[in-house]
């Protein structure tokens, strides 16, 4: 299928988050053929799972909608979901890429009516909600999913549930026999926009994530705050479902730490500052309190305004200290131990919920990248030595959305130049 369309004048974009979508669109809107591959069943990446965006506190759906509309309206972008890159061979202007497409078990006929989900009994931890709730094993990844098509979880294939789903579908979209495919394509340039993943918080032993129920990550907190999320936007703590009122945010959880991630993840200070405003919003009577424990707040350039506004907010206090350890009380409350370095005051502070501002590590860390790829000491992708492959967005550096799209646009421009050079040499020859 794709094999005959893609040529060495095609740009391959790996990863369908905000950066991948941006890079694909920029190249396509300049007239280039683009293949955009995403390993999950939907485009959108991590940003789709945020409740609001700093600095304007708008909802991510807005930006997502604009980009999806551009993609739908552009015939030069071909989107392949549930697809991963297995191998890259060749060189700048002439790469051969092997793609592996996992079976979705639902074809283009799907109208997203949801009848299959109703028919299926099995439930799986909802990947979109970081497992904070379950979803049926036949599911639409989220409301804004693209393509708007259901997925059957592989765990029900071969069970009665799969049969039930197939029987329930009126348009014949379910295909339990769908098998994995491998496709080889020819492309001229590759943009790696594989994004980031949260640092595994369980490795930060003194903070007790995984042992103490009311210690959660900043990503989970985004879902708690979202009215469409698992708690309907109420900040309910996991241990007993009580509304959290006295919330601690711990900065640099796993970042700027030689024992964990060496780099500053750059966005987590802003993310916590933003999340204090969720607390404020969730407690209209003013009973919600946020305390940010930090080494130093890194709100870069124009974000300084945002920081200053949060500083003025009486519901937010700041403690200059890297928390040494957390202990759990009997009621599920948590006691934070440390020393406030402004004045060297020792504290043992009680909170009912702790949010770890976990660091960002490159999603590509741990997966095998083509040998030619150069990464920095933290595993972020700089590009390939032959200058035909580029990193974009959070795959290249821990970036916020604004900077990620800038980086993606830059990568698209470089890819376009590669295609132009390829075309020029071929015409000359």
């Amino acid at each position: 299928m794709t094999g005959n369309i893609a040529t060495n004048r095609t740009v391959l974009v790996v990863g369908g988050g905000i950066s991948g979508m941006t890079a694909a669109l920029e190249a396509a809107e300049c007239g280039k053929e683009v293949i955009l591959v995403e390993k999950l069943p939907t485009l959108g990446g991590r940003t789709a799972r945020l409740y609001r965006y700093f600095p304007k506190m708008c909802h991510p759906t807005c930006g997502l909608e604009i980009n999806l509309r551009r993609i739908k309206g552009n015939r030069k972008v071909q989107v392949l979901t549930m697809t991963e890159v297995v191998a890259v061979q060749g060189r700048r202007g002439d790469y051969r890429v092997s793609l592996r497409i996992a079976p979705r078990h639902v074809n283009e006929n799907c109208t997203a009516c949801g009848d299959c989900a109703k028919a299926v009994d099995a439930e799986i931890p909802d990947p979109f909600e970081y497992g904070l709730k379950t979803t049926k094993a036949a599911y639409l990844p989220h409301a804004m999913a693209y393509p708007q098509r259901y997925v059957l979880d592989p765990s029900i294939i071969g069970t009665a549930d799969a049969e039930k789903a197939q029987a329930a579908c009126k348009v014949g979209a379910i295909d339990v026999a769908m098998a994995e495919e491998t496709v080889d394509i020819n492309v001229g340039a590759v943009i790696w926009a594989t994004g980031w993943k949260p640092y595994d918080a369980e490795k930060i032993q003194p903070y007790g994530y995984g042992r103490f129920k009311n210690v959660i990550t900043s990503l989970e907190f985004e879902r708690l705050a979202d009215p469409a999320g698992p708690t309907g936007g109420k900040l309910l703590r996991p241990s007993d479902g009580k509304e959290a009122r006295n919330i601690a945010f711990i900065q640099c959880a796993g970042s700027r730490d030689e024992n964990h991630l060496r780099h500053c993840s750059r966005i987590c200070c802003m993310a916590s500052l933003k999340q204090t405003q969720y607390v404020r919003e969730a407690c209209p009577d003013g009973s919600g309190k946020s305390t940010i424990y930090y080494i130093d707040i890194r709100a870069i350039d124009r974000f300084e305004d945002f920081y200053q506004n949060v500083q003025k907010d009486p519901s937010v206090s700041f403690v200059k200290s890297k928390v040494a350890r957390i202990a759990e009380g009997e009621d599920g409350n948590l006691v934070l131990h440390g020393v406030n370095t402004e004045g060297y005051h020792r504290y043992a502070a009680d909170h009912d919920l702790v949010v770890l501002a976990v660091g960002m590590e490159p999603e590509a860390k741990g997966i095998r990248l083509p040998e030619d790829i150069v990464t920095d000491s933290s595993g972020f992708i700089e590009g390939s030595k032959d200058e035909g492959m580029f990193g974009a967005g959070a795959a290249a550096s821990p970036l916020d959305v604004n900077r990620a799209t800038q980086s993606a646009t830059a990568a698209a421009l470089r890819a376009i130049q590669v295609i132009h050079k390829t075309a020029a040499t071929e015409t000359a020859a």
Partner: protein
Amino acid sequence: MTTANQPAAYRNDFLKEVEANVEEGHMVKMCMQCGVCAGSCPLGSHWEHSPQKIFMMIRAGKREEVLTSDAMWMCTSCYNCIARCPRKLPITHIMHGLANYAHRLGLAPKGQPTRDFAVMFWNNLTKTGRVNELKLTLGHYFKDGIGAGIKKGLEMKGVGLGLLKAKRLNPMEILGGHKLQDLAGFHAIVAKAREIEDRRRGLSS
């Protein structure tokens, strides 16, 4: 660069002095003042200067206050701070290095129990090349006088008898105890080591 016999030259720059003379002192400047070590120390509430504070004081040039502090002598080498320091400072080693340097300069607090015991231990060890545990224990018990020593001895009687029974304590050690064969050679080695160290630090032995 450090040259011999000129410690005074560095005194107005205490960080450099520490870097040159204290074990792992070159790592002091890597501290980012996050406070994790201060919060992690199990004895932290019992002394005035946490490692974090000491490192800031070094950079602020507070020579006198640092070297006369009892903080370094309170470190029990639990290694909690080292395990957690995000900058991987060998904090425990630096604390002991500072204690040693302050002692050699004669600035360490007088009568500080850990310091006294450390001196006693060193003298005990270097005498024969072997630690004489019986003499060390007795020395420690009787350091505050005969009465206090007898009282302590009676308190610890059970432990002592248990050790005797298990052949972990030899009463004959009181007569001098086991020692190295080439004692003179050993003393020469220790003296030479001190000479080298002092030369490096610009001290006269």
